[in-house]
């Protein structure tokens, strides 16, 4: 998955258009294609395309029985499946197309070339070739195929389900041989060379890289490793102090001139008054749960009270002196 959404955002998403509009774009796109090469259908949207072998039902190299079109009733080999149009290219289904000279391949002598035609997947049925007792070749055409137990296919290097003809489940249609395996050429590395161990860690106590190498690999004089700040750096980190405005200066001068606000302990009178009120209230409470709750509440402490009391004590101490 790509996180680059910028490219997609500005692209025209034709797949989301209604069909009539899509046809317009198809016609417009075909204006620039070669005659006889125009595409007739809009490709399937991405979410509708089939990509898994099990979903498609066949692989390249399978035999197909054609049920529609000019070549109806013949068996041919599939050599390519196109998920964009859900159709296949068959070995024998071709048509003559006009090719201008710049596109000619080597040894081409005519403008007309045999070009494979797309056949819709719904117009073919899976077929298989077998020999009877007399050695005569016969074909089996499967109307529908069902999958059964999976097995590991060493040719494909993966797990594949076995294919059977539906309704005749004794008939298995084996998967064909995959297209030729990649062969080594003069640039490829030998398998034995790949698996050869060329380095082994001898001891955990000894580092794998000599200690001196690290200093060479890493820059010991990097400015990010320096313990000291240059003057420029320090200036950048510590911004300049803004000068105070006149109003601020006047305000601060006034503040310092005023005597600091001093709190006093609650007087005996007030303490007795509050205590009497609380006693009045608490003595009327009968619910033990409420009393327990108030007991806990009365023990709750706040740092602000500590601060106030400390300030009061300090003030009292200075006054005594």
């Amino acid at each position, binding site marked *: 998955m790509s996180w680059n959404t910028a490219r997609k955002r500005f692209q025209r998403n034709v797949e989301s258009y209604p069909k009539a509009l899509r046809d317009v774009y198809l016609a417009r796109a075909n204006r620039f294609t070669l005659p006889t090469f125009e595409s007739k259908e809009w490709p399937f949207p991405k979410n509708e395309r089939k990509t898994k072998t099990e979903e498609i039902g066949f692989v390249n190299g399978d035999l197909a029985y054609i049920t529609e079109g000019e070549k109806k009733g013949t068996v041919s080999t599939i050599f390519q499946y196109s998920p964009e149009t859900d159709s296949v290219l068959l070995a024998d289904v071709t048509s003559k197309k006009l090719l201008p000279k710049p596109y000619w391949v080597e040894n081409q002598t005519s403008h007309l070339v045999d070009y494979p035609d797309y056949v819709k997947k719904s117009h073919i049925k899976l077929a298989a070739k077998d020999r009877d007792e007399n050695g005569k070749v016969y074909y089996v055409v499967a109307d529908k195929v069902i999958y059964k137990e999976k097995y590991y296919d060493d040719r494909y290097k993966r797990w594949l389900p076995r294919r059977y003809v539906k309704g005749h489940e004794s008939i298995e249609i084996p998967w064909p041989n995959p297209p030729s395996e990649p062969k080594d050429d003069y640039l490829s590395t030998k398998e034995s060379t790949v698996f050869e161990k060329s380095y082994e860690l001898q001891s955990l106590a000894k580092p794998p890289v000599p200690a001196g190498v690290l200093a060479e690999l890493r820059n010991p004089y990097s400015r990010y490793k320096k313990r000291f700040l240059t003057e420029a750096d320090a200036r950048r980190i510590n911004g300049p102090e803004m000068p105070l405005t006149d109003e601020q200066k006047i305000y601060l001068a006034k503040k310092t001139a005023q005597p600091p606000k001093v709190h006093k*302990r*609650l007087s005996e009178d007030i303490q007795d008054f509050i*205590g*009497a009120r*609380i*006693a009045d209230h608490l003595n009327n409470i009968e619910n033990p749960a409420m009393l327990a*709750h108030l007991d806990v509440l009365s023990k709750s402490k706040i740092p602000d009270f500590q601060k*106030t009391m400390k300030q009061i004590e300090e003030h009292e101490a200075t006054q005594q002196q």
Partner: protein
Amino acid sequence: MSLSAKEAFKKLPEKLHNFFIKYPPRPFAEYSSKPSTISDPNMNPFLPNKNEETGKWHEPRFSLRRSADLFKMAYKFGIHDLLPPIPHKRFYAEKYYNKNWMRGVLFQKKHKWERELPEKLKEREEAIAKMDEIIAEKRPGYKKQIAKRNNKKVWW
């Protein structure tokens, strides 16, 4: 078990004690129930007050949340009336009794047909009850039919 005043005062939570140190309880100090100036000795810390020198309004010293906290704690100890007045907030039962209900809650508007339904049903009932008279008024011949129906004798 009855508590003495001295014992009870020790039960005063630190939060309230701290508040009373800064703002003594009501009968020992006066607090205005309206916003005043910051230099006013009767300034209420639960209300916004004006700085007369700069003309700016200071936010209340105690936010709505902190004032509610103080009130509720004092209420539990029965000393909520010693705090400076909080005219802009109501608590507990008072909050619900003095609630300013929405008009739509007190009287539902309903659809027009719903509002007019009782009247309509009443009219219909009346019309059914006076059906014969109404028909006879429009169709004089109907009176005969009524008379015939009334004179019909039944053998049982």
